[in-house]
Structure formats: structure tokens, C-alpha cells
């Protein structure tokens, strides 16, 4: 690895940015280990791009520090930072050819012999022979790779990517996700990737931070975030969740007891964020299974009864809505594995789950069930 520069994690300490009365980034603190692929995930307006721009030096923080190793770089001009950016929609210089675009950073630092480096960098992003073309003559995917090469050639300590794949079509995006991941492993530079696409963040990043209203809701490995979300926001933003409003009644053995809608449930203590007061009992739709009646529920599983109110066949699975006795709808994904038949709308069913797949989250008292089914977009109420 080419880490001649002193090793260092990127640390944000109490970073705050206010635009007038609007607080875009609110007292943000986090550490991004050197060499990791880190994703900042959030809806538009959550402050993720502002955070990125403060790391790049394109925005001055209102308060707090941006530390690279032990050095506070928050006050440095962008061109004084060992940080480079892949801009949203790339910002390639239209009047310079690809070679000069890639060579730009080296030339600004007074390096005269750039041809070899540029050639090697273009090879890394698989654009050999394109050096003499102008950006406008390349496809979106090719432009994206030029933007990447233009930043990487400077061997930054941190590479910032601002929605780098947003302008590409779905197929190309998937391809570039794999490509970016390959390049990151190859060069070993810290990547900080800003995106609103949860799937993109989960496939690529080692660590994902979910941002909301200028704060980090939860930070962790993708599987950890998905399997055991810390807040209702994360539970709904990353995939879908059935959140039943209930009240936790303390421990019983290794479990936390939850009373919800007249029934009693239990969840392993390791999967409960709180053990008293108003909570959400959460189960992911694919962790729910439908059977004909309570007698068919496997031992150790917990269940609620209901009526199928909607069934959408989507190929890989069938998505059911089950209306419970108290009127809420639960979302259930049944894999089309060939086991079990299709259920008709109106059928009486029992939904059951393994308590080890459920989770308990704190709930604002008064908040009702949040089962928000079939919702692909982030829920409303996110700061914009």
C-alpha cells in the first residue's frame, strides 16, 4: 500500500453547520477508520452532503473540528487538504481533454512528468486510449470513471464521493458499485460515500451511518443496521418494518416483555434497545410467516391473527397485507420458493415469527403502529 503519508483516521468532532436559522449538520461526531469504505446514508436534505463539503473544505463549519490523524483541517482551504472529491454529476472540466482532466491535480502541485501516472490511472478505471477525448464525448459511466481517476491520482488520504452513481441508469449503477468496491480494495484509500440509495450503501460500505435532520441515527455494519435498527427512523429507512406500538414491562429471565394490543410478547434482552416504557415491537416483513391458524405456529414462535387484505405477486415473492384485529396492517413477504400455496384475499391467517428476529425500539408515547407497508421511498417527516 502506498501510505507514505502519516496514518490517520478521519474524525469529525462536534461538527456543526448552520445556514441562518437552519441547522444542516447538528453537533456531529464520528470516526472513520483509515482504509474503510464508509457510507453516509440519508434522504435529501439530511445534511450528508453538507458534511461531505465540510470535509472537502468547500463549506466552512460553524463549529467543531475535522481531524485527519491528529491534525485539524477544518480551517484549511480545499486545495490545502489531502482530500479529493468525486462530485455529483462529476464536474469534469469541459474545455480540457480526459488526459488533462486527470492530470489537473498533479500539475497544480507542480509535477511536470504526469503522462505515466495518468496512463496508469486511466488503465485502473479501464479507460486506456481515451486521453485525447473531451468529457462531452464520453458516456455517463465513462465520465464517472474519469472523475474517479481524476481524484484518485492524487493519492488522497480520503476520497469523498457525492452521490457518484446518481446520474447513471440502474444497470450501470450496479456495475459501477462493484467496480468502485474493487478499486477501493485495490488502492486502500478511505472512501466516504454519500448516497440516498440504501441498497447502494449496503452493498458497498463496510460501515454505514444513517443520517436524519443533521444527526446520525445509527452507525454500524450494514447487516447490523438492518437486523437490529436503533430507531424507528432507521427501521423504516433501511428496508421496511412492522412496528407495533406497545409498552415494555421489564425483564423476565433473558427476555424483555412487551404488551401490545392486548397481547403479550417477549424479545431476547440483547435485541431490546429499552426495557421499560413505550416501545415499538419490530419485525421485518420477510421474518413473518403466514399459517392457517394458531395451532400451526411452531414452538417458541410468537404470533398475531388477521385477515389477508391484499396480495401482490412480485415474482421473487408475494407481498401480503394482513389486517389485524385492532385494524393495523402488517406487511408480510413470502418467498416464492415453491413451498406452500398462494393465499387468497379474505383468508383468515396467523402471522408468526421467531422472537430472536424481533427487536424493541424506544417509542415516543402516543405514537401508533408504524407498519407503513409497500413504502419504498423514505417516510415523510424527514427534514428537507
Amino acid at each position: 500500500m502506498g501510505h507514505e503519508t502519516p496514518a490517520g483516521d478521519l474524525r469529525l468532532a462536534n461538527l456543526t453547520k448552520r445556514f441562518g436559522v437552519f441547522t444542516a449538520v447538528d453537533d456531529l461526531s464520528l470516526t472513520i477508520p483509515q482504509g474503510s469504505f464508509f457510507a453516509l446514508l440519508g434522504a435529501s436534505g439530511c445534511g450528508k452532503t453538507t458534511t461531505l463539503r465540510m470535509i472537502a473544505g468547500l463549506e466552512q463549519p460553524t463549529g467543531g473540528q475535522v481531524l485527519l490523524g491528529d491534525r485539524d483541517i477544518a480551517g484549511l482551504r480545499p486545495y490545502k487538504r489531502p482530500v479529493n472529491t468525486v462530485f455529483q454529476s462529476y464536474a469534469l472540466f469541459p474545455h480540457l481533454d480526459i488526459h488533462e482532466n486527470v492530470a489537473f491535480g498533479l500539475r497544480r502541485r507542480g509535477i511536470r512528468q504526469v503522462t505515466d501516472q495518468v496512463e496508469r490511472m486511466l488503465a485502473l478505471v479501464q479507460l486506456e486510449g481515451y486521453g485525447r477525448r473531451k468529457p462531452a464525448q464520453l458516456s455517463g459511466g465513462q465520465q464517472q470513471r474519469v472523475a474517479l481517476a481524476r481524484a484518485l491520482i492524487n493519492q488522497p488520504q480520503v476520497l469523498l464521493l457525492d452521490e457518484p452513481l446518481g446520474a447513471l441508469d440502474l444497470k450501470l449503477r450496479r456495475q459501477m458499485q462493484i467496480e468502485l468496491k474493487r478499486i477501493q480494495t485495490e488502492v486502500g484509500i478511505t472512501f466516504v460515500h454519500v448516497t440516498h440509495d440504501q441498497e447502494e450503501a449496503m452493498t458497498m460500505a463496510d460501515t454505514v451511518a444513517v443520517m436524519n435532520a443533521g444527526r446520525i441515527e445509527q452507525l454500524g455494519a450494514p447487516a447490523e443496521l438492518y437486523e437490529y435498527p436503533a430507531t424507528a427512523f432507521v427501521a423504516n429507512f433501511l428496508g421496511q418494518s412492522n412496528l407495533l406500538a406497545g409498552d415494555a414491562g421489564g425483564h423476565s429471565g433473558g427476555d424483555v416483555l412487551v404488551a401490545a394490543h392486548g397481547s403479550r410478547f417477549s424479545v431476547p434482552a440483547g435485541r431490546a434497545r429499552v426495557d421499560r416504557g413505550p416501545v415499538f415491537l419490530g419485525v421485518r416483513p420477510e421474518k413473518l410467516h403466514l399459517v392457517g391458524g394458531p395451532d400451526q405456529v411452531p414452538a417458541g414462535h410468537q404470533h398475531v391473527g388477521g385477515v389477508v387484505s391484499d396480495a401482490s405477486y412480485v415474482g421473487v415473492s408475494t407481498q401480503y397485507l394482513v389486517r389485524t384485529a385492532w385494524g393495523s396492517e402488517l406487511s408480510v413477504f413470502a418467498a416464492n420458493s415453491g413451498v406452500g400455496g398462494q393465499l387468497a384475499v379474505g383468508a383468515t391467517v396467523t402471522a408468526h415469527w421467531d422472537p430472536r428476529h424481533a427487536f424493541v425500539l424506544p417509542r415516543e408515547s402516543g405514537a401508533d403502529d408504524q407498519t407503513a407497508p409497500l413504502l419504498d421511498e423514505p417516510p415523510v417527516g424527514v427534514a428537507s
Partner: protein
Amino acid sequence: MRISRWVADRWVMGVALLVLFYLSLPILVVAGLSFNRPSSRLSYDFNEFTLDNWKQPCATSDMCDAVVRSMEIGLIATVVSTILGTLMAFALVRHGFRGRSGINGLIFLPMATPELVMGTSLLALFVAAGVPQGFWTIVIAHVMFCVSFVVVTVKARLSGMDRRLEEAAMDLYASEWQTFRRITLPLVLPGIVAAALLAFSLSFDDFIITNFNAGTTVTFPMYVWGAAQRGIPPQVNVIGTAMFVIALLLVGASSLRGRRARRAALAAPAVGAGTATSRS
């Protein structure tokens, strides 16, 4: 039915071509008259074909002096107004400041004010201030009415420019000055050049404002104005035709260059396309 459809589809273009003919008729006449040996000084009719006017364009030397003077004034006014206007355009697009609407009004009003009013008011000022009128008062007046057009032209180019390009340059180790020199200036330059050409042509062709502020200095339009009473030498049409041809060649060359650059770039390497796909 078929015929009415055909007419309906094409009448607009037909009218357009007729109007273009109306617009270009005087130029054809000017070009024709440049080869005319007029029957008398005050005649405007075609009399006899000759090449003399083109062989001796400066037969009436005061006309050529006027052309040269117009060029001198045009060049100075262009340089000054392009610099002043470009600076203002940068301030307007790139910076926040107090009094923006006042500045916008100051830039817009000269374009909306009749030339006659600007010409006479400057005359009133120069007379009241006791400034003798001549070459430099013409330059001052021309800079004044060119600045607004420069601001508008450069501003359009500048505000169409993506700010992220400059951020990208700063991110790639270019200082403020290097960013301006390597990114901003090259990208705005076409707008500045267009503004300069516009300023020159406005200055070179101006009559009304010049007429009130020239004193005894004679520019080319003023020469033509005076000669219209005394009798127009046919060489005026030579100058008119030459101006037209030069301007047309400039436009043609620039569009040809643009097209060739595009084609050359497209024909450039198709190498790498294969390797890119085969390696991934």
C-alpha cells in the same frame, strides 16, 4: 386537400424567405453599387460597371481617414468597455453586495434609453463642463453605451457556468488564482470575446451619439452622413461591402472551426473501447 395541406405546411417558411430577401436586399444593392461608376455625384442609380472603386478604395482620402479613426475609437472603446463590463459581470454573478438592484438599473437603463437622449445629455454635460469635444469624448461616449452590452453578454455566459467546476479545481489543489486562470477564464472567454466583438461593432457603427459628441472629428458613419448631402463617393459602398464580407468570413471561420474540432475529436481514438469491456 393535398395541395392545401402542402401550403399549410410551408407558407410560414415561404413568408420567412421573403422577409429574409427584404432584409438582404440592401446588402446586394451596396455590393452592386460598389462596382458602379455613378453618372453624377448625387445619383444613387446604377450606371456603369467598373472595378475602379475596388482598385482605389482610398481615392477620397478623407473617407479612409474616417475609417481608420473609427477603427481606433472602436478598438479603444472595446478594450475599455470589455474590461469594465467583465469586472461588473463577475461581481453581479459571483458576489453578494448591497445595492444590487441599483447597479442592475444602472446597467439596464442605457440599453433602454434612446440614443438621442444619451447623445444630447452627454453633449450638455461636456458643454457645461467646458470639455472640448473630439476623439476622446467619442471614446468616452462609446465606452458608456458598450459597457451594458458587455455586462449582459458576459453575465449570460458566467451564470451558465457550473460552480462545481471551480470547486472541483480547488479540490484538486488549484489555488483561487489558478482556478480562475485554468478553469473560470477559459470557460468564460467565449462570452468575453463575443462581448468584445459586439462592443466593437456597436462602436464602429454608431452615428447618433457620436454625432452629438464628435466636435470636428469625423468617424466613418459621420463621413457617410455628411457625404449624403454633398454626394456619396462610390467607395463608400466598397467599404460597406468589405465590412460585410469580413464579418461574414469571421462568422464562417468560427463556425467551421467549431465543427472541425467536433469532428476531429469524434474521430479520435476508438482504442480502449475494446479493452474496457474485455477487462471488466
